[in-house]
């Protein structure tokens, strides 16, 4: 029998964090359910259940960010654009189908059965009256179909990522230039969506997304828990999928690309192909997270695609610890919950006598300082705590240049 080494053992044995993660997520889900208004002792308010559900979605998009940045080394600052696009795609169906119900009910009051034209007209005016239009834009052609819009949740961000990534990676745009390009992408998309004739209601965005079509009688107490469950399931599946992706030879190759892409080319791997694959896969995961997030938020508008949103995403992953999946989850959960506590006005102000620190204004400063501190003093982020605990010390990624003599010395040492 040969020596047991890391390549040989099974997926779960090699990734103990997966079992731990699923266990903790399951317990958390159970706990929230038991404490919810609809299914338990009503300790947690419905709005807090929604906050927790949204947080799980943010953890999922942080996982995607960790794959592309932490593992593949591509600092994309545009992934929240894919997240928002996913939300818009599902939001279109939610808004259309809900409005259809309302319009049909209203027309039924008139006595005569309404014609499909009348219904269509009514929906268009209801949704687009706010931007002064009375016809549905062509991009709403599939909005009546849940399954079609669900497919678009994946297809629209996926194709955008594929085209953008193909153009960028083919020209070998890397490093800070790629980051700037992704910022430009999300900014351009946001500016486009802000226009009233973009077909997505301009700066009004889509609203009322918390109302589920066909479930008008079901209270939000219940719906919020259902979405919480769906978010937990998506996060769990996403974690297992990404843990599998990074654990095998594919993970090896993308980490190698992060550390020395030229060397990977000389091994025969098409670096651009791998980057494109990871970019598109993570865009799709981000889109799915967004499709689950916005029905819990109730509203989506183009401000969600602001460049700063994607920068926050990178900050979460950096604080949590990039290059390890649970680090991204910890960072996203910790920072986003803290952020909503500080900006929600619930954090007590700090009176200094001459000045009062009001956290709604100062939270961003605190976050920025934490980011700088983590980057400088704890590059492994919060996740690094687990290394201390396990006593793991990783070597530097790039070895220092050793002269021939140094090398010979180390060789001797190694033999001793």
């Amino acid at each position, binding site marked *: 029998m040969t020596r047991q080494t*890391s*390549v040989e053992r099974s997926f779960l044995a090699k990734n103990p964090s997966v079992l731990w993660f699923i266990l903790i997520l399951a317990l958390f889900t159970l706990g929230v359910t038991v404490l919810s208004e609809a299914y338990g002792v009503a300790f947690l308010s419905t709005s807090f259940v929604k906050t927790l559900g949204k947080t799980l979605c943010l953890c999922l998009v942080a996982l995607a960010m960790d794959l592309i940045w932490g593992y593949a080394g591509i600092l994309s600052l545009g992934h929240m654009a894919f997240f928002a696009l996913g939300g818009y795609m599902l939001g279109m169906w939610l808004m259309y189908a809900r409005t259809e119900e309302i319009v049909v009910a209203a027309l039924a009051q008139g006595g005569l059965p309404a014609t499909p034209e009348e219904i269509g007209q009514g929906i268009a005016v209801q949704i687009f009256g706010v931007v002064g239009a009375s016809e549905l834009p062509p991009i709403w052609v599939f909005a009546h179909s849940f399954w079609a819009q669900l497919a678009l949740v994946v297809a629209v961000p996926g194709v955008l990522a594929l085209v953008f990534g193909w153009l960028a990676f083919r020209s070998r745009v890397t490093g800070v230039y790629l980051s700037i390009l992704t910022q430009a992408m999300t900014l351009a998309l946001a500016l486009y969506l802000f226009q009233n004739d973009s077909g997505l209601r301009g700066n009004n965005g889509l609203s009322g997304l918390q109302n589920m079509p066909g479930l008008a009688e079901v209270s939000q107490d219940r719906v919020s828990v259902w979405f919480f469950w769906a978010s937990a399931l998506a996060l769990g599946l996403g974690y297992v999928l990404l843990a599998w992706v990074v654990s095998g030879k594919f993970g090896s190759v993308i980490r190698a690309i992060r550390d020395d892409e030229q060397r990977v080319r000389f091994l025969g791997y*098409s670096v651009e192909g791998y980057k494109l694959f990871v970019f598109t896969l993570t865009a799709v995961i981000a889109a799915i997270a967004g499709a689950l997030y916005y029905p819990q938020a109730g509203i989506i508008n183009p401000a969600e695609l602001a460049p700063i949103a994607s920068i926050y995403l990178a900050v979460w992953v950096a604080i949590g610890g990039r290059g390890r999946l649970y680090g991204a989850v910890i960072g996203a959960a910790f920072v986003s919950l803290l952020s909503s506590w500080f900006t929600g006005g619930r954090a007590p102000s700090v009176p200094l006598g001459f000045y009062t620190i009001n956290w709604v204004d100062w939270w961003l400063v605190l976050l920025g300082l934490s980011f700088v501190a983590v980057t400088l003093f704890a590059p492994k982020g919060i996740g690094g705590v687990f290394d201390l605990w396990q006593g793991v010390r990783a070597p530097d990624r790039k070895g220092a240049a050793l002269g021939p003599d140094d090398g010979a010395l180390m*060789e001797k*040492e190694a033999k001793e």
Partner: protein
Amino acid sequence: MSALLEVSGVSVTFDGFRAINNLSFSIGAQELRAIIGPNGAGKTTFMDIVTGKTRPDTGSVTFGERSVSLLSLSEAQIARAGVGRKFQRPTVFEDQTVAENLTMALKAHRAPWRVLFWKERPEDRTRVEALAQEVGLADHLPRKAGELSHGQKQWLEIGMLLAQEPRLLLVDEPAAGMTLAEREHTTALLVEMAKTRAVVVVEHDMEFVRRLNCKVTVLHEGAVLAEGSLDHVTKNQQVIEVYLGRG
């Protein structure tokens, strides 16, 4: 014997500086060749051209029986066509284990989709272990490459090259930073590898080249100055002037 690699009339200019000047070079399918030349002669640039890292301004580079032009291929395609390269400084993936480094280099499908669903078969395992054995790293498979000594990293990189099973191997200054015993081991390995493939070795050290006991090409200012046995080229007056004469 027909040539495996055929480089003809190649020139490269960097910002007006001619690093390679109408260079022609060819090597057979099972041949060992040493390239020597003073610093800045263009040895590394020559390897950059063959591996697709640098595009020449003029000339042609063809490879294999069907004389495929390498100039229209990407670095990765050239590597897949069977050209392996060892860099001057050891470049291994320090954050990954020796086993992972070797596994990545193992000859196999390289497309993302295939790699994603790749599963290690027992023969892959055996091959990785055999390679590690061959380069003296059998006891280090689960260690991170970053923890290895300089010489061991050199060996790991050679192991990765063997794993790729290239038909043409370009080796840039392999003996740098090696102890005497390691150099001898390296020489033997290069001679052995050249029995089944073409091997081009760039080296400064004359003793090392002598032990390789093969045909030598002398580069100077981006062009071939002389070619033949080591004794033959070291007698060449021009070679003595530009290179050996300077000690």
